C-alpha cells in the first residue's frame, strides 16, 4: 500500500515554532525553499543567507548552516559565500524592502554578473520588520505608516516590478509566484525548484519573487490578506515565469 505524505522537512516540524506573526507568508515561502532543498537531497548542504528583516527569524527556525548579514546585503553576501562554497546550494531569502530598495543595486548587479545563486524575495508590500512603512512594492493608494494618506505615484513613484527591471538580462531564471491559494503555492514551489536546479547546474542567477501576506502591517486578518493578494496585488504583479535561459 503506497502512502503519500504531506509533511514539512523534519527540521522544521521538530524545531521551535517560528517567530512569525499568525498568517505571515514567510512561514509558507521559507518552507517551500526548504522542502525543495530537502527533496533534492540538498537541505543539509545548503547555506541560507538572511538579512535583518522578518526573514531572519528563519535563522532560529531551521538548523542548517546560515549567515545573517546586514539589511539589504543578503544577495551580495550570498554571492560571496557561493564563490567560496561552489558545491553548496546557496540562497538568499529576503524581503522586498531589502532587495528592491537598500539592496536593489546588489540585486541587479548580481543578476548582471549572473552570480550562481538563488534568490527568493518575499513581496509583502511593506517593510514588515520595522513596523509597516512603505516598501518599493507598496501599491498606489496603499496606506502605510510612512504613507499614511496612501502611496502616491507623483510623490513616491510606481511600485517596483523586478520583472521589468531584469527584462533583457541574461540570467538563468526569473519567476513570480504567489501563496494565496494551494494551487499557487504548488506552482511557486515548482518555480523555486527550477531555480535551485539551475543553480546546481551552474547556470547562474535565479530569482523567484513571491507575493505573500503581512497581515500585521496590512491591518487585515489572514483571510482578508490572501483576498487582497488575489484581488489587488496580483493585478499589479502578475505571476508566472519571466525568464528561463534558452527559453526566455
Amino acid at each position: 500500500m503506497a502512502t503519500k505524505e504531506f509533511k514539512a522537512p523534519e527540521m522544521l516540524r521538530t524545531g521551535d515554532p517560528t517567530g512569525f506573526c499568525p498568517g505571515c507568508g514567510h512561514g509558507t515561502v521559507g518552507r517551500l525553499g526548504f522542502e525543495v532543498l530537502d527533496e533534492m537531497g540538498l537541505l543539509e548542504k545548503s547555506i541560507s543567507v538572511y538579512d535583518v528583516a522578518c526573514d531572519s527569524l528563519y535563522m532560529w527556525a531551521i538548523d542548517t548552516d546560515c549567515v545573517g548579514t546586514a539589511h539589504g546585503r543578503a544577495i551580495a553576501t550570498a554571492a560571496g559565500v557561493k564563490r567560496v562554497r561552489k558545491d553548496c546550494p546557496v540562497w538568499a531569502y529576503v524581503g522586498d524592502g531589502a532587495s528592491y530598495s537598500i539592496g536593489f543595486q546588489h540585486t541587479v548587479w548580481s543578476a548582471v554578473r549572473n552570480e550562481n545563486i538563488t534568490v527568493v524575495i518575499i513581496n509583502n508590500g511593506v517593510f514588515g520588520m520595522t513596523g509597516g512603512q512603505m516598501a518599493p512594492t507598496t501599491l498606489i493608494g496603499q496606506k502605510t505608516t510612512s504613507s499614511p494618506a496612501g502611496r502616491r505615484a507623483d510623490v513616491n513613484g510606481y511600485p517596483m516590478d523586478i520583472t521589468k527591471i531584469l527584462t533583457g538580462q541574461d540570467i538563468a531564471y526569473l519567476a513570480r509566484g504567489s501563496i494565496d491559494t494551494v494551487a499557487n503555492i504548488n506552482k511557486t514551489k515548482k518555480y523555486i525548484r527550477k531555480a535551485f536546479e539551475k543553480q546546481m547546474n551552474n547556470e547562474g542567477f535565479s530569482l523567484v519573487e513571491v507575493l505573500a501576506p503581512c497581515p500585521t502591517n496590512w491591518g487585515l486578518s489572514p483571510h482578508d490578506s490572501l483576498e487582497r493578494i488575489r484581488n489587488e496585488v496580483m493585478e499589479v504583479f502578475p505571476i508566472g515565469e519571466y525568464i528561463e535561459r534558452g527559453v526566455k
Partner: protein
Amino acid sequence: MLTEIICAGFGGQGILTTGILISYGAFKNGKKITWYPSYGSEMRGGTANCTIKISDGEEIASPYAKELDVLLAMNAPAIDKFEDRIKPGGYLFVNASIVPDDKKYRDDIKVVKVDTVKLAEEANNPKGGNIAMIGVILKKTGLLTLEQFEASIIKYFTDKGKEKFNDANIAALRVGYNSVQ
C-alpha cells in the same frame, strides 16, 4: 512623590493610548511624566505594554519603573509578567471581562477587578472600556481628580480633531469613576 505605573495587555487593546491618556492628564495638571513603550520586535509577540512615571516635583530619571504603584492588566499574561513588580500595598487593576475570575493574586497588594465591557455598555460607549478603567484608577488612587482628568481628556481629543467623541469619553470615564464605592 513618584508614581510608577505599567499598563499591559494584548496588542489591539489600546494599551499604549490608555497610558498616553493617563500621562497627558497628569502632565496637563502640572506633573512631570515619562511614558515609555515596549517597542520593536516585540510587536510580533502580540503583547504590548508601556510604563508611566508621574512625579509631583523631582525630575524623572529613568523611564523604567522599579517598583510599581499601579499595574493596569488588560489580560492574564500581563498579570503573570508584571504582578511581582508591584510594591506591597500597590494596586493591581484587572480587566475582569477577560481575566478568569478564579485567578490567584498576591495578598499584599490591592486587587481591583474591573469589568470593562460592562462599564462600557453602561456608558453606552462600546469602545470606552479603557477610559472607564481610567475612571476606576483615578477614584481608587487619587492620582487626579475627576475634573482634572475630564479637562485633559477633552483637550486631548479636541486637539486631535476628535471632539465628537468627547461626550462618550466623559460618560465612560464617569461610569468608571462612579462604579467605585
